[in-house]
């Protein structure tokens, strides 16, 4: 599995006639965790969906390595790019292992049973997120934090090169949010995964993302290390609220000024 970068090149897109992203370019490299931050409606989710290939740009291109994503079939795409959407609900009491095994859908035909390779991928994904001992539990018996980890395992079972997470820590308490983010950061490093995630928790993003991209009304207001992006004047302008940034003990806090 050779590691490749994922990039959007001068993309403009939106829904119906309503533009959301405008001439935006961004690249995420293997092993790094790119955090998309910005106010509600800035275009974070749209950018993620665009990077996943499920939403097509009006103009511009999305490239995986040097290949345009538009040239991939949906199934091919799902073998390279995994996406954990926000607010997934699983109505049916599948077991955790059942849910994670759905990550193998891009590799399986309609009726085929799981091959040993699929079983191994599922087991490995469960181990990576620390849910191996809960494999036969109903997904409904898990806490919100565990469910989010199960969805992460589903994505990992796709054996992707790119992992996209839309607000993975929403609705999680402090402990579970940190645990998940550290897990994602370690996975990115260990497997040379491209990880792009969106979040509203700027302090968490500052600590766990290797790079930040600040979106404002569909364009990039800033893109770089936390020192470049988490500046009080910049954030205050973008969020329309007086904000301060405090750094202590290697930890960053963004707070109202």
């Amino acid at each position, binding site marked *: 599995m050779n590691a490749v970068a994922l990039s959007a090149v001068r993309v403009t897109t939106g*829904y*119906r006639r309503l533009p959301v992203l405008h001439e935006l370019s961004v690249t995420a490299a293997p092993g790094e965790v790119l955090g998309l931050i910005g106010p509600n409606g800035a275009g974070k989710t749209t950018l993620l969906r665009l990077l*996943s290939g*499920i939403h097509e740009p009006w103009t511009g291109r999305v490239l995986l390595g040097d290949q345009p994503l538009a040239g991939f*079939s*949906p*199934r*091919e*795409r*799902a*073998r390279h*790019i*995994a*996406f954990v*959407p926000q607010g*997934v*609900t*699983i*109505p*049916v*009491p*599948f*077991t955790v*292992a*059942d*849910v994670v095994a*759905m*990550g193998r*859908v*891009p590799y*399986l*035909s*309609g*009726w*085929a*049973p799981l091959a040993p390779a699929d079983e191994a991928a599922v087991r490995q994904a469960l181990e990576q997120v620390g849910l191996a001992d809960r494999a*036969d539990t*109903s997904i*409904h018996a898990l806490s919100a934090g565990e469910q989010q980890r199960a969805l992460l395992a589903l994505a990992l079972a*796709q054996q992707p090169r790119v992992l996209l997470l839309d607000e993975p820590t929403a609705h999680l308490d402090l402990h579970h949010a940190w645990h998940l983010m550290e897990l994602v950061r370690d996975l990115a490093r260990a497997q040379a995964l491209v990880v792009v995630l969106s979040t509203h928790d700027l302090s968490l993003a500052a600590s766990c993302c290797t790079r930040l991209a600040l979106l404002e009304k569909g364009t990039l207001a800033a893109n770089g290390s936390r020192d470049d992006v988490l500046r009080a004047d910049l954030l205050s302008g973008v969020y329309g609220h007086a904000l301060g940034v405090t750094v202590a003990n290697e930890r960053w806090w963004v707070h109202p000024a």
Partner: protein
Amino acid sequence: MSRSSTRLRRLAFACPLLLVCALFLGPGWREPWTLLDAEHRGILALRGWRVLLGAVSGASLAAAGVVLQAILRNPLAEPYILGVSAGAGVGAASAIVWGGLALGALILPMGGFAGGLLSLMAVYSLARVDSRTAPHTLILAGVAWGALCSSILMFFVSRSSAEGLHAVSWWFLGDLQVYDTGLVAAVALVNTLALLAIGSQARSLDALTLGDELAGHLGLPTERRKLMLLALGTLLASASVSACGLIAFVGLVIPHAARSLVGPGHRRLLPASILLGAAFLALVDGLGRTLFYPVEIPVGIFTALVGAPFFLALLRRKRRDMWGHGP
């Protein structure tokens, strides 16, 4: 995991046995061996067709329920909810009322499928907003469409001659009497093919229960796949409606029973529902022939007696508990 596959294996063994039992239910059930006498061959053959129709309809309605529940992500969905059954009823009843029977009995499933498909397309396009279809909008549209079709059926009843009236009101009851073996054979063939096609999409059905967004990220052409599966489910329900009228609640009760036995994964849920549905409808019809002999109770009355309380009990549960708790 292994427990649910054991259960599926037991079902695969027990359900065909139950179908054989159903063959011997009816007048003369106390002396089943007499049915094998040479002079009773005709009765045995007729019973055979009737059990086949019950098995095919039961399996079809149950599988249609499984498909609709998965795609609408709604535990209360079944062919009725989408207005598919009522639409198929209108299609087939129009064929009767306008004298289509002169063209042969196959006009019934054709009319039924046309009505069912038209209903599906109407409901789907009514519920479609921004090239996407939200589950609850689809259900509301289905309920409204079903009400419309029911009034059209009532209109036929109020307008038609006495003979036609009998034929139309029969659609409301649901009955497994075999009037035309050719019709039963055609329905059996078409529905077997549709069941195989749905079976080949078991993993798609699994993924679609996670929602359109995630299913799309798993590489499914979501809208197209949903339309295909809905059309196959419609075909199953319409063909069965055209051969035996509106049989209520089988598409609701059987998938839930099967889910509680083998879990929600469609590679087991589909075959389990097909087996259970087939055995259930054929057996219940056998009871209808036997219990109040010489009066035969139409099978639709029995399924409604079982299904309606089940539906109400399901309604009273919390939404998440409606799916049961797995095996």
